[in-house]
């Protein structure tokens, strides 16, 4: 028999591995672009040594492309760093807009692979909840996996989060094909164990075209 802690641990490790693999893939792409730009500069220098004049504008464009990739790489690594630190504490005050932004950054590649765009809509900048940030991200990832299968024709999922009377509600909206997802799609054992660990409940609402994760805050 597997305990809740065992299930949550195993599900968490799978989630952590999946995110790390995706991040490494993104970094590889950044390095690949930088590598080609460096190679192009070598090619242009080689041609210049054989009498073809160097075009300063072309070199400036290469430099701009490299700088853009460095910014992109820095964003990816910043997200990775925030994700890595999400395991630091099991109960901490979590900013709802920040956790949704982090989820979006971590998962945008998975979404893009499925032709889905993620849009964050969190107007309450100061909204927080006390919870485990890593387990919350894991739960939201499981919700997002379902949501991506139910995205409507314009292939955009709206991620939102807001305080409720005694906690928080995080929503995945514009799921126009949610009718195709069974109402009990979230009742598998790993998801249920995760919900118990977070004191959370996930509802799949075909009429509202949304998946909503409700969390109780120990602060009330």
């Amino acid at each position, binding site marked *: 028999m597997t305990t809740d802690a065992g299930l949550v641990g195993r599900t968490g490790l799978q989630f952590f591995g999946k995110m790390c*693999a995706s991040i*490494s*893939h993104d970094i*590889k*792409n950044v*390095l*690949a*672009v*930088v*590598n*080609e*730009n460096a*190679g*192009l500069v070598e*090619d242009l220098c080689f*041609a210049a040594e054989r009498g073809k004049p160097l075009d300063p504008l072309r070199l400036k464009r290469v430099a701009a*492309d490299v700088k*853009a*990739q460095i910014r992109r790489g820095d964003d990816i690594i910043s997200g990775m760093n925030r994700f890595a630190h999400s395991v630091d504490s099991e109960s901490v005050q979590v900013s709802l807009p920040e956790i949704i932004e982090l989820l979006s950054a971590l998962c945008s590649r998975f979404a*893009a*692979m*499925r*032709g889905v765009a993620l849009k964050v809509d969190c107007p309450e900048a100061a909204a927080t909840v006390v919870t485990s940030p890593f387990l919350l991200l894991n739960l939201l990832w499981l919700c997002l996996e379902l949501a991506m299968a139910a995205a409507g024709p314009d292939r955009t999922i709206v991620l939102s989060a807001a305080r409720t009377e005694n906690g928080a509600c995080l929503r995945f909206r514009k799921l126009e094909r949610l009718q195709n997802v069974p109402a009990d799609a979230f009742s598998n054992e790993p998801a249920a164990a995760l919900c118990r660990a977070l004191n959370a409940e996930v509802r799949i609402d075909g009429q509202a075209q949304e998946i909503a994760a409700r969390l109780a805050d120990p602060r009330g």
Partner: protein
Amino acid sequence: MKVLLVDDEKELVTTLAERLSIRGWEAQWATSAEEALDRLHAESFDIAVLDVKMPRVDGLLLKKKMQAICPAMKFIFVTGHGSSRDFQTGASEVGADYYLVKPLNIDKLIAKMNEALQR
């Protein structure tokens, strides 16, 4: 020789196309499977360099679609996987004999393209 480079990383394919052109290849590029298939319907290519992981239609499925249009075309696969081992299993299933891991070494890419074209 005409080569079609397909990768959703636009900066990668455009720069690689420029570098291959400097080396005498007639290189064109596409950033999606749909765009690649459109190009292939309009003109023929000797070889394609395909990224394995692309949105909606991945490189392995794209190869099948391209082969249906141009059966004689050769293919090189490029993967962003840290290790090529995982990719080998899937690639062998669709007959992807030639593959390289990012970041690319252009000399190795050209050597693989020549090897594939001489086969």
